[in-house]
């Protein structure tokens, strides 16, 4: 195996890990509520900014500020669902898309108002550091994110399968009417689910902050990638974000290495389109359809 290919593969897997980390919450929210959250990228942005300001003011390492980002985003997500998105339960799905798009505009532009459009970054001692093994570079910060993605996928699976709240969430996702009859307070479950999705997304924003550019307008791009990742993996299928993230990451990295970076974006959308047509249930065929 030649070094260029191996490096492209490693870059792809690490990129895929990053994708998986920030797409899991998107998949959770869609899977349970059918809400395509167009403000998803803003959750990442808020997570990254939480770490940024804690770093700026208290010199707190992003990995240490991650729990704060999680907590803050959980509260934010919980309130958004409880007071805004819950209002359109039972209405056509377009209502939730448009509503979250409105949120995207508001959150992003209020953030611009508060923090300006400047690009920021967090420079830590390990920000540019790589591990060099057999002539291949592995950036530490991305490796950590990759591990976080694995952990998040596992933790989410564990939570949904083994806890009381997790069971209630799964029941609600399967049939909200029956869940309601069984005594599940579905509005509360929805709020918790959105909070949870927001929290793990905030976590990803936080652990990504050492190596990404942070700006109030960063969100939309991430939302779009999360779309692709989740469709590839199978919408609403939790481990799907990991599968989709890795596949997309490797595909993009190979395309960028052997063609050019612009083509890799084009390929992303072509893959997404073809995937939806021929296999809307995702690569593993375990996603839900409508």
């Amino acid at each position, binding site marked *: 195996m030649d070094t260029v290919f191996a490096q492209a593969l490693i870059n792809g897997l690490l990129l895929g890990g990053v994708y998986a980390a920030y797409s899991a919450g998107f998949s959770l929210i869609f899977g349970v509520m059918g809400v395509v959250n167009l403000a998803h990228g803003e959750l990442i942005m808020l997570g990254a900014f939480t770490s940024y300001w804690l770093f700026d003011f208290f010199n707190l390492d992003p990995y240490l500020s991650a729990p704060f980002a999680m907590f803050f985003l959980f509260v934010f997500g919980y309130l958004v669902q409880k007071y805004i998105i819950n209002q359109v339960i039972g209405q056509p*799905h377009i209502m939730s898309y448009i509503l979250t798009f409105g949120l995207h505009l508001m959150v992003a532009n209020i953030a611009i108002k508060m923090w300006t459009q400047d690009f920021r970054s967090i420079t830590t001692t390990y920000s540019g550091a790589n591990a060099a093994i057999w002539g291949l570079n592995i950036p530490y910060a991305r490796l950590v994110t990759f591990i976080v993605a694995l952990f998040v996928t596992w933790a989410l699976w564990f939570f949904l399968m083994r806890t009381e709240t997790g069971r209630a969430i799964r029941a609600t996702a399967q049939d909200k009417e029956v869940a309601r009859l069984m005594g599940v307070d579905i509005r509360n479950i929805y709020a918790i689910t959105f909070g949870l999705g927001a929290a793990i997304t905030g976590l990803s924003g936080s652990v990504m902050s050492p190596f990404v550019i942070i700006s109030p307008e960063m969100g939309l791009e991430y939302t779009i990638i999360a779309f692709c990742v989740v469709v590839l993996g199978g919408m609403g299928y939790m481990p799907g974000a990991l599968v989709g993230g890795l596949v997309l990451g490797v595909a993009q990295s190979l395309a960028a290495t052997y063609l050019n970076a*612009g083509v890799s974006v084009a390929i992303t*959308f072509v893959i997404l389109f073809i995937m939806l047509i021929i296999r809307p249930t995702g690569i593993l065929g375990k996603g839900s359809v409508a």
Partner: protein
Amino acid sequence: MNYRTDRIILIIFLLISTAVAFLPYFVQSEYLLRLITVVIFWIGIAGCWNMMSGYTGYIDFGPVVYFGIGSYVAAIAMTKYMVPFFPSLFLSGLISAVIAFFIGIPTLRLKGAYFAIATFAFAEAMKQISLEFDRTFKVSFFQGSDGITLPISGHDNSFFFYCILPVTFVVMLTHYFIEHSKFGYGLKAINEAETAAEISGVNTTANKLRAYATSAFFLGLYGAIEAYWITYITPSDVFNVQKTVQMVIMTLLGGMGTFLGPIVGATFLTLISESLGTRFVEYYLIMIGGIIIVTILILPSGIIGTLKIRKRLRFI
């Protein structure tokens, strides 16, 4: 059946359209004429989206792709093949419609969020392809991010006013036709309950395709007109997702699946963005976000849709 309200609205619409057609003779201010043209332009574009998504309930998140295709067909026809404007215009609509037909066949089988995402993906893919095509295949066709400069038209605003007005007029008449025709009842039945429509004899695939391709045809026309008007296009401009967003929000605000919805929504939002957008740029987008949220929560059927329910008007 009592269609009287509808007839009255149609007559008012025809009268206003006729009156508007004479505006360039009376409006002296170039700014005002341009503003009026922009309003009519957006009414038509929002109408294109409404024609498909408003009536069938299939939420298209990539209508801008046909606008962009129209722009590029016109630009390439005029610069590379020296085709005059009006034939290029027609070609733009035609090619948009043909592409929509072939894209519609696989995508219109998808439901709900899947259709929305597929159309969105197609639009973004076209944008990226037109950006990267030349560099990848070492040709000079789409001219990537350099963009294409069209021949300077030398026409004034009133020329474009008279290009846009008839198209918007036809788009709105098509709405009226949809409201009162077999085709329109088919679309509305699809929106309400697709399986029930199918077993009642509605050829759902054909009806959806027809609506999708018609909407694409008109969007192609608008794309071509705008390209000729501003004389310079790039993929990032003509395939800009912001245009899709505008169409959706205008229609939603006015009322999806109604005749007056796009007119009210597009006029309202264009005027707001014109008056606020220049003076309070920074707050404009925050406010649009707020308007969207408030509309969805308080007027989920839009301004016209809510009136329809409150006043028990059957159609408008």
